[in-house]
């Protein structure tokens, strides 16, 4: 199933790396990733990450993400249309 995970985090060095590590540990490929600072003081970031996974794994991933100290809030939504079918990955 196709999921979108939105996370509100601290805007500090290494947060992207830690979040990516959670995906790596679960061997989950990221289909789309957006990160931006979200407030005037640039102290917080919003991550929007899209990926394919089973329901059980996606929820486990979200909970493991919430465990990160820098992560303040996580929301997981399942896309209604199921997203695009995964294509053969191209390293470019």
């Amino acid at each position, binding site marked *: 199933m196709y999921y979108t995970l939105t996370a509100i985090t601290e805007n*500090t*060095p*290494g947060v992207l*790396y*830690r979040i990516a*590590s959670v995906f790596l*540990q679960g061997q989950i490929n990221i289909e789309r990733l957006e990160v931006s600072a979200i407030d005037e003081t640039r102290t917080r970031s919003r991550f929007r990450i899209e990926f394919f996974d089973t329901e*059980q794994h996606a*929820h*486990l991933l979200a*909970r*493991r993400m*919430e*465990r990160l*100290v*820098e992560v303040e809030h996580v929301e997981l939504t399942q896309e209604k249309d199921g997203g695009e079918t995964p294509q053969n990955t191209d390293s470019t």
Partner: protein
Amino acid sequence: MHTPTGAESLVRTLKEAGIDTIFGYPGGAIMPAYDALYTHSNGKMRHILVRHEQAAAHAAEGYAQTTGNVGVCVATSGPGATNLLTGITNAMMDSTPILCITGQVNQALLGTDAFQESPIISMAAPVTKWCAQVQSADKIAPTIMRALAIAESGRPGPVLVDITKNALAEACTHEVPARPEKSRPSLPLDEKAILEASELLNTAKRPYALVGHGVLLSGAQDALRTLLEKADIPCAATVLGLGAISDDHPLFHGMLGMHGNYAANLKTDEADVILAVGMRFDDRVTGDASRFARNAKIIHIDIDPAELHKIIPATVPLVGDANAILEALTPHVAQADRTAWRESFRLLDQCEEPVRKEALSPSDGPISMSEAIRALDEATADSAIIVADVGQHQMLAARYYRLTGTRRFITSGGLGTMGFSLPAAIGAQIAHPQRQVIAVMGDGCAQMNIQELGTIMQEKVPVKILILNNHYLGMVRQWQELFFDERYSATAIESPDFPALAAAYNIKGACVRERAELAPALAEFVNSTETRLLEVHVRTIENVFPMIPSGGAVTDIRLQ
């Protein structure tokens, strides 16, 4: 007026946070911190010089696990920092609060492959609860305070603060913030879930409690015992949960898992309600998870939401502090008498009697590892701390060393780190100078951090070192015998003359080969006020049973 450096700020911050013991090893990048420690080496901050940074992390773990406070270790950049990683990962797996402080090259040299530069933050991130690099002196104090709070809040774990050399050396304004509140305050109790859990327990015919490390971390031993006694619920523990309920309690039926007890394992498949407290259904506990607890509804209490539904789906998940949840649950749980259910545990326990008898009372032949453990049990005080390494001796210590009184059992549970026991015992002994602290290891583990005999010698740590020498890497040998057609690949291991090696470190050692010598040697060993090493030559072939074969279900448990 003297302007403090970042290094002085670091040491003062640690002191203000109540830290009085550090395990570490100096080197180039961390030198300014050691210079500041020299200023403060007036007895208020004790530095234990280890012989390898891995040992610093394990010693901090031993300190933390036996005190409940954060253990602190220090290493320099590059290899000093990377050597910590095994200990950090061990602490992550076993939820042990340690603070690791590493030196780093100057900020200007970061990313230039400078001498002794390693990207420790990148390496440590997946195996720490939190880690951060500090590049300016002013940020040292607040970062250390935040790290300490994170290490001990919620589910405890390791944190790492990497400090560049310029930050340690430059001047700063030393302003220590108060130690912050826990970064994640405990969640409000879920009253509805508590009522659901009590309803499940009250209507259960065959309830069974699985006790994990979280009970000890939460200090929930009394609350758990009260609930179990009121509702008459039998229980068993994971390897790290051992000691939470006394071994001689009538409701206690031993250890879960691959080398756990017969009844303890089989009853997970018979129970209709399982109350899992502060445990995470590790694969060594569940065996084949798809065939675990097939007849049970699960009440799962854990402070870490990521543990719920991870392996075994919970019927009633309860997120939060085990002690608070158990205290809230008990008033709703009905008093019960489950004599028949309890009796069925006892009958299964009896099936294990021949295994125990053969292990503990062999009629002839060399000493067995099991009887050496039982003899140690009989020789030690009710307040002893046993630090077991990893392998057959660890499982046999878990089985045959009785955790009654205020005895503690410390071991590497999740990561299974050989070489853990000697440095962890150093940490435990330094935290508890008056208690008997005994490191129990096989001949393989003994040689994995043997250099720490130097630390013990220099710091005069009166730890007791018991080496059960079967001339094999015994657990791997057992698997080769049972599952690899007796093809003993690389498991026969030769060891040095351990007492002679101890003597080289000015430690008194002894060696036992005969059964009649065992009890007197152990009595002298544990009661000495000084460090002692005792090598016991045990039979080369001894298998740990019961055993759940790898990949099997708990119902596949074998008694031989």
